[in-house]
């Protein structure tokens, strides 16, 4: 059975301690933090240290910024690298496992006009490899991991599938860079999501969950037993972190509460007694 985490913005409560009280009662094992830019995450350190002292488990942080380490613009790229470096240090201080980021988000899509990115493939690869190397080396020094998240084709044009992330990670050659998979993006990009998990097994470091429609698991049509069964057979030991939107017209707290029992049910043998 997997451990679960819930992103902080989905949890009711004014403080992390209050959020954890809710999360724990709902069956979660941790809180995934969100790392805003302008060193906002680092500035939260007093708050985060307090939460840690009060026993709030915070295994991971997911980046929450307008630009990313593979941005077209060199200044933004530099800033994103600085922010991620800082976020890795903060999550290390909190005793967490690592920080998750995509190459970019909302910057360009090959499926939308003007279809051709302003940067050539060679340059893109250089940007990706140098960014991952810089962040990976910092992560290694801090004893944590950078999780590279493939996004769907409409949200990022560089890293969409697990095999692309695997190829980059192999080229970087650092154990401190792994893939942060996301069930929603995989549902769009992978021909066979469970097979993609098995194929990328040694490179998977983190997993975020949401359903086919980006709502909480159970609200869409993903084949959860197969997806979770693949992750289990891949020997994955990390958390399943809830990063999603919540079904409208449903009490948000109830939607968040519904996830741990749903995932537990879906990651058992068969959901119901498979009688003879």
């Amino acid at each position, binding site marked *: 059975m997997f451990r679960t985490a819930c992103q902080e913005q989905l949890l009711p409560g004014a403080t992390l301690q209050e959020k954890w009280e809710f999360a724990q009662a709902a069956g979660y094992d941790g809180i995934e933090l969100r790392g805003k830019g302008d060193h906002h995450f680092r500035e939260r350190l007093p708050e985060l240290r307090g939460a840690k002292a009060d026993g709030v488990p915070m295994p991971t942080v997911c980046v929450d910024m307008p630009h990313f380490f593979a941005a077209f613009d060199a200044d933004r790229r530099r800033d994103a690298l600085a922010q991620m470096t800082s976020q890795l240090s903060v999550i290390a201080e909190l005793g967490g496992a690592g920080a998750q980021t995509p190459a970019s988000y909302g910057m360009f899509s090959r499926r939308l006009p003007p279809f051709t990115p302003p940067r050539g493939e060679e340059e893109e690869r250089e940007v990706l490899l140098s960014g991952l190397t810089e962040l990976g080396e910092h992560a290694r020094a801090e004893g944590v991991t950078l999780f590279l998240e493939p996004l769907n084709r409409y949200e990022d044009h560089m890293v969409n599938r697990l095999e692309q992330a695997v190829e980059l990670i192999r080229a970087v050659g650092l154990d401190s860079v792994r893939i942060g998979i996301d069930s929603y993006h995989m549902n769009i990009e992978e021909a066979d999501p469970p097979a993609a998990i098995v194929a990328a097994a040694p490179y998977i470091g983190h997993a975020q969950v949401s359903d086919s429609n980006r709502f909480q698991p159970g609200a869409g049509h993903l084949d959860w*037993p*197969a997806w979770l069964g693949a992750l289990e057979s891949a020997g994955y030991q990390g958390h399943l972190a809830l990063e999603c939107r919540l079904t409208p017209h449903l009490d948000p707290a109830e939607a968040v509460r519904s996830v741990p029992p749903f995932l537990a049910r879906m990651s058992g043998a068969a959901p119901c007694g498979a009688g003879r």
Partner: protein
Amino acid sequence: MTSSAVAVGPGTAPAPPPAPARPFGQADRALRRRACRVLLGSWTGHSTVPSHGLYPHQWSWDSAFIAIGLRHLSPLRAQRELETLLGAQWGDGRVPHIVFNRAVPLGAYFPSPDFWRSSTAGAAAGAPAALETSGIVQPPVHALAAWLVHRADPASSARRGFLARVYPRLVAWHRYLADRRDLGGGGLAAVVHPWEPGMDNSPCWDGPLARIEPAAADSFRRADLVHGAAADRPTDLDYGRYVRLAAEYRDHGYRDAAAPHPFAVEDPGFNALLVASEYALARIARTLGGVPDVHRERAAALTDALVERLWSPEAGQFLSRDLRADGAGRTAGQLVTARSAAGLLPLLTPDLPPAVVEALLGTVRGPHFGLGTTVRLLPSYDLRGAAFDPHRYWRGPAWFNVNWLLERGLRLHGAGQRADALAEEILRAAADSRFAEYLDPHTGAGRGARDFGWTAALALDLLARRARQAPAPVPVPAPRKDS
């Protein structure tokens, strides 16, 4: 694999001690992960290949056994597995033994689609026009599989209309066997090719096959020897006869009324699975709000016919009946004296006469099959038979689906401890042999393909039952670096 897994050679009593019952442990979890990886790796998007190299298409009874295990990994995929197979059903109700994947090159398997030519040669029998299949069938284990798949997740089954969708197709399949395949007129389904009962080169077919003129050796090219060792596979001579029989059936448009069927045999395993599947259809009918009686009555009639036509009190097991005469004075309708594991599979049927059950339970562990006395898994053929060969496919090796069926039969007839012991041996052999296709019954050495689909699937099924029955583990806190 080492020889320790099944060991104990012929005549070297005493019996191995029964495997002790144990809780669901690390080794079981590791085996479950490995089995899941096999099934995930063999999934093609709509069905599962038994083995990527040797069997790169969809096989009928493989799909059924695979679905029985796949239901524990993904009830949805298990439902799809059966739906896609039944989607290739012919108009006359037959479920073809192979559904070809058009993306696989023709040379990857023989007989290939251009040999069977189902969409043209089978048109009069209702073969699908848009896809290619073989023209023969395999044992009817599908309704049983459908019921078990439904039970794994009744909610998703109901939501998707799984049973409602497959039930009419399963009924049509059984009707085909009743209407077109009762070649002996005694109420049982006959097989018309040695591949149909699933045990392709069983010594039971040596007699009925001997009268078939083999196709010329240069008229076809086997693909199975590219992936499998020749000594573990059927001989070239047998292959020539298989090809001849299939070609003749094809050349008669696969129409059972028109085809001469020089090979026509009533097989106890095939018919026992039909009985078990009729009972499953009764349960399916009841779940759908229909009337199960017709299926129960049919199952009872099939059971009676099975006992009347194929039971041999002298042998203490069921035997095949050869419906054709040979040219050497042997009349039609004789029982075949060769003892196959198929003759023990009627243990799957619930309403056998008690004396028959008792005799079967004795034969299972007696000198001919030696289960729990000289071998740990049931061999496919008589250990003492002249044709016994521990390596050659269905002429002696132990197969996992047969042992899984026997485990079920033992349990059905109150031999729970023996069933538990057999389940343990199946799991141990599956683990040690890397999910081999079949095993030397004496040494346990794996033969044929590895990471074989139904071996992994049926191990998963036995593991799931074991997990349900195991005492609740003492909770151990997971290591957490974050707290």
